C-alpha cells in the first residue's frame, strides 16, 4: 500500500513511540529481576532461555514428586499446589518463550481476553454441573417449608416433619451417575433391575440416584421406616404387603411423609404388571437394602 510518507510518520510515531519506550524500560526491569542481568536487546539469549527451560523442567519434576506418595494421589490436598505450579509454568512460557512480555500491549490484551473467557466458560460449566446443580429432589417434598411459629405447640418438632427417610444430602461429587435407560447398570441387583425395568416402580417412586418418580412416596430409607408403619409388621412384611396388596395401607402425612398419597392409585397402575413370586422376593430384598 502506498501512502504519503508524511502521513505514515504521523501515524506510527505519535501513537506508539512513547508507549514502546515505556515498555522497553519495564522489560529491562523484569529481565533483571528474572535473569539477574539485562539481556542484550529485549529478548533473551541461550543462557536466559536455558535457565528458564531448566526452571520449567524442575517444576514439572516437582509436580510429579508431589503425587508420588500414594496417600496424596487423587486427594484434594494436592490440587492447589499443582494448579499453582502449572499456572507458573503456563505464564512463564507465555511471557518469555512467546515473548509476550516484550510485545505490544494489545497482543497481551487479546490473548488474555481469550484465555480469561475460556477459563470463565469452563469454570461456569463445571459449577453449573457441580456445585449449583440442584440435588435431585422428590417433588413430594414441601415446596415451602412450614412456618415454625405457626405449628401448634403439641406438634412434633420441625425436624420430624420432614421425611425422615431421606438420607443426608450427598456431596455432589459423590452422587451416583444417573440411571441409564433400561437399567443396564453394571453390578445392579436383580431387584434394582426390576425396579427400573419390568416392574416399572421407577415411574412413580424416587430413589436417589436411581429413580425420580413423583406419584408415589420416595423410597429412600424405606427399610428403616417400614418397620414403624403398621404395628406388628416387620419391615419385610410391610414392604411385601405394599407391593402385593397396595391398597391395604396407603402411606401419608401420618408416616412423616409430606402428603397423603392417593388410595388405590398403585393398584390401578400396577394392574397390567405381572410379578412372579421370585420377582417380589427380589424387589423386597432390594428395598430392604435402602436404609
Amino acid at each position, binding site marked *: *500500500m*502506498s*501512502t*504519503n510518507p508524511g*502521513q*505514515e510518520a*504521523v*501515524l506510527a510515531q505519535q*501513537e506508539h513511540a512513547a508507549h514502546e519506550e515505556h515498555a522497553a524500560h519495564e522489560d529491562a526491569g523484569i529481565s533483571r529481576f528474572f535473569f539477574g542481568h539485562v539481556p542484550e536487546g529485549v529478548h533473551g539469549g541461550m543462557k536466559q532461555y536455558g535457565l528458564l527451560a531448566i526452571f520449567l523442567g524442575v517444576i514439572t519434576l516437582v509436580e510429579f514428586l508431589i503425587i508420588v506418595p500414594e496417600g496424596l494421589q487423587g486427594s484434594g490436598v494436592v490440587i492447589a499446589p499443582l494448579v499453582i505450579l502449572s499456572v507458573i509454568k503456563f505464564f512463564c512460557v507465555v511471557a518469555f518463550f512467546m515473548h509476550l512480555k516484550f510485545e505490544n500491549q*494489545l497482543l497481551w490484551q487479546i490473548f488474555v*481476553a*481469550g484465555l480469561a*473467557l475460556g477459563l*470463565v*466458560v469452563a469454570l461456569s*460449566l463445571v459449577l*453449573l*454441573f457441580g456445585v*449449583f*446443580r*440442584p440435588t435431585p429432589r422428590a417433588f413430594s417434598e414441601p415446596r415451602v417449608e412450614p412456618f415454625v411459629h405457626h405449628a401448634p405447640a403439641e406438634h412434633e418438632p420441625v425436624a420430624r416433619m420432614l421425611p425422615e427417610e431421606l438420607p443426608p444430602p450427598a456431596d455432589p461429587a459423590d452422587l451416583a*451417575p*444417573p440411571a*441409564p*435407560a*433400561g437399567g*443396564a447398570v453394571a453390578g445392579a441387583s436383580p431387584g434394582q433391575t426390576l425396579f427400573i425395568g419390568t416392574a416399572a416402580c421407577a415411574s412413580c417412586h424416587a430413589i436417589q440416584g436411581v429413580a425420580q418418580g413423583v406419584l408415589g412416596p420416595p423410597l429412600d430409607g424405606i427399610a428403616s421406616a417400614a418397620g414403624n408403619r403398621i404395628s406388628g409388621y416387620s419391615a419385610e412384611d410391610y414392604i411385601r404387603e405394599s407391593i402385593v396388596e397396595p391398597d391395604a395401607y396407603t402411606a401419608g402425612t401420618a408416616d412423616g411423609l409430606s402428603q397423603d398419597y392417593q388410595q388405590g392409585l398403585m393398584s390401578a397402575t400396577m394392574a397390567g404388571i405381572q410379578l412372579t413370586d421370585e420377582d417380589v422376593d427380589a424387589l423386597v430384598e432390594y428395598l430392604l437394602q435402602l436404609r
Partner: protein
Amino acid sequence: MVTITGVIPRPSTYTGLWSWLTTVDHKRIGALYGFSAFFFFIIGGIEAGIMRMQLVTSDNSMVSADWFNAMFTMHGTTMIFMVIMPFGATFFNFLVPLMIGARDVAFPRLNAFSYWTFLFGALLMHAGFLIGQVPDAGWFSYANLTAAPFSEGKGLDFWALSLQVLGVASLAAGFNFVVTIINMRAPGMSLMRMPVFIWMTLVTSILLVLAFPIITVALIELTADRQFGANFFNTAAGGDPILWQHLFWLFGHPEVYILILPAMGVVSEIIPTYSRKPLFGYPVVVFSGIVIAIMSWAVWSHHMFTVGLGPIANSVFTITTMLIAVPTGVKIFNWVGTMWNGSIDLKTPMLMAIGFVALFIVGGLSGVSHAVSPSDFQQQDTYYIVAHIHYVLFGGAIFGIFAGIYYWYPKITGKMYNELLGKIHFWLMFVGMNLTFFPMHYAGLNGMPRRIYTYAEGFGWEGMNLLATIGYFVIVISLLIFIHNFFRSIKKGEEAGHDPWDAPTLEWSISSPPPVYNFAEVPVVRGQDAYWITKREAAARGETVPAEPHVDPSTIHLPSPSYWPLITSFGVVWIAGGLLIDVGWDYIRFPISFVGGIITILGVIGWSLEPPAEEHHEAADHH
C-alpha cells in the same frame, strides 16, 4: 520464491467467470456474499411459507409432520447461518476497507476462502434435500434427540458437518476483520474516530472468533457421537444431554448479538445521515456495543430456565438477562436522541432504520418479559418465543439489512434506486411483518406450542394463524417489489453520483461504484465523521468536494487474484462431505474424507508458496 513462481502462475483475468472465482477484491466478495445470502433468503422464505400454509387452519394436512420438522429446522438454520450472518459479511466486506480508508482487507485470499467455504458449506447442507436426508431436530438440535437411535438417516450429519464448515468460514472472516480493523485504519483514524458501523463490525468479529470455537466443540462431540460411537450425550453411558444445551447456548447467545450488532451499526450510520446531525452520544453507543458483547457471555442459560438448573443459576441468569437490556436500551435512546431536532429526511433507508428501532423495541420488551424465569416457564416453547425471535431478527436484523442495502445501493451500483418503490417496499414489509408476528404473541400466550405441525380446532388459534399467513404473503409481495426495484434500477436507474446523501463516512468520497483500488491516495482522518469535516471546510471556502479522480489502476499495487482459496475451500467441504457418503460399506467414508484433507493441505501449500505478484520484479532484481 523465485524458483516456485513457475509452478502455477497467479490468475490474471479481471473479467468473466474465472475472475469471479479467483477474485480477492473485497467489493466483489461482498457482492458474492450478498447475492448468495439473498438466494438463501428466498429458500428460507419458501420454507417459512410452507409452514405458514400448513398452519393456516386447524387439522391441516398439507405436509407431513416429518416434513414440517425439516422445514422449521432448515428455516431457522438457513435464516441464521446462511442469510443474516452472510448479509452481515456482505456489509463487512464491502464497507470496512472503504470506511477505514484501506485498499483491501488484511488477508484478501483468506477473505475469498471465507466466502467459498461459506457457499460450499451452505450448499452441502442443502444437498441433503436432494437425497431426502434433511435435518429435523430444530435449529438448536437438542441432544439426545440428535442421538443416532432417535434421529436415523443422515439429516443431522448433514446439519452438523455443514455447520462445522460454515463455522470455519465465519472464523476465517472473523480473524480477517479483527486484523483489518485493528491494523489497517487510515492515518488519523483512532479507535474513537471510527464510524460506529466499524466498531460494531469489530465487536461482532471478536464475538465470532470467541464464540465459534464453542459450537465447533459441540459439533465435534455431536459428530463423534453419531459417527464414531462416542458417549458425550449418551445417557446410557452417563452422558448428559444438558451439556449440549449449555455448549450450544454458550455459542448461541453471543451469536444472537453477532446477528444484531451489524444491523445496529448500519442503523447508527443511517440515522445521523438523514437527521443531518452527528450521532448523539457516540462514545456511549460504542461502549454500549462493547458492554453488550461482554454481557452476551453471561446470559446464555436464559434459554434453559425450564431445564431445572436450580434456583441459583436461574436467579443469576434472570438478573444478567435483565441487565443486558440496559445497554441495548441506551442505544435506542441514542438513536432517538439523534433524530430529536434533526432535519429528518424520510428516504427509504431512514424509514427502514426507524422501522428497525420501533420493531426492535417490541422484540426487546418481549425479550425482557421472558428474562424473568417464572414468567418464562409459561412462555417456553410457545409461539410467544417465535414472535420474540422474529421481532428481533426480522424486525431487527432484516430491517437493518434492508436499510443498509438501500443506503449503500448508490455506492455499490452507481445508480439510484426508485424511491417510490422503496417506500412501498418498506410499508408493505412493515405491515406484513407485524401482521405475521404480532398475533403470534397472543397465540403463544393462549398456549400454542411452537414446532407443532398442526393443531386441533377449538383452541381458538385459527384466527391468529390466518392473520400470520396473510402477513407472510404481504411480506412476499414487498420482497418482489424489492427485487424488481433492485434489478430495474441497475439497468435504468439514474446516475447516483458519488455522494447522494451528503454522508459523513469515507466511502462516499470516492466515485460510485468504487474503483478497484478504492482510494488513489489514502485519506487522512481528522475527526469523527471525517467526510463531513472535509465537506464543511470546503463549503466554508465556497467550494464543493468532487469525487476522488480516477487514476490508472495499473499504477497501484493490488492483491492479485488466486486459485488457492477456492481449491482449499473445496478440500474443506470435501472432508465434511466425505463423511456423509453412504454406499453400503460404512468405512469408505474415511478414505473419501481423507482425500478432502489432502486437497486442503495441497491448497494450503500452494497458497503459502504462491508468490505475491508484485515480487516478480523485486525477485528478478536480486539475480
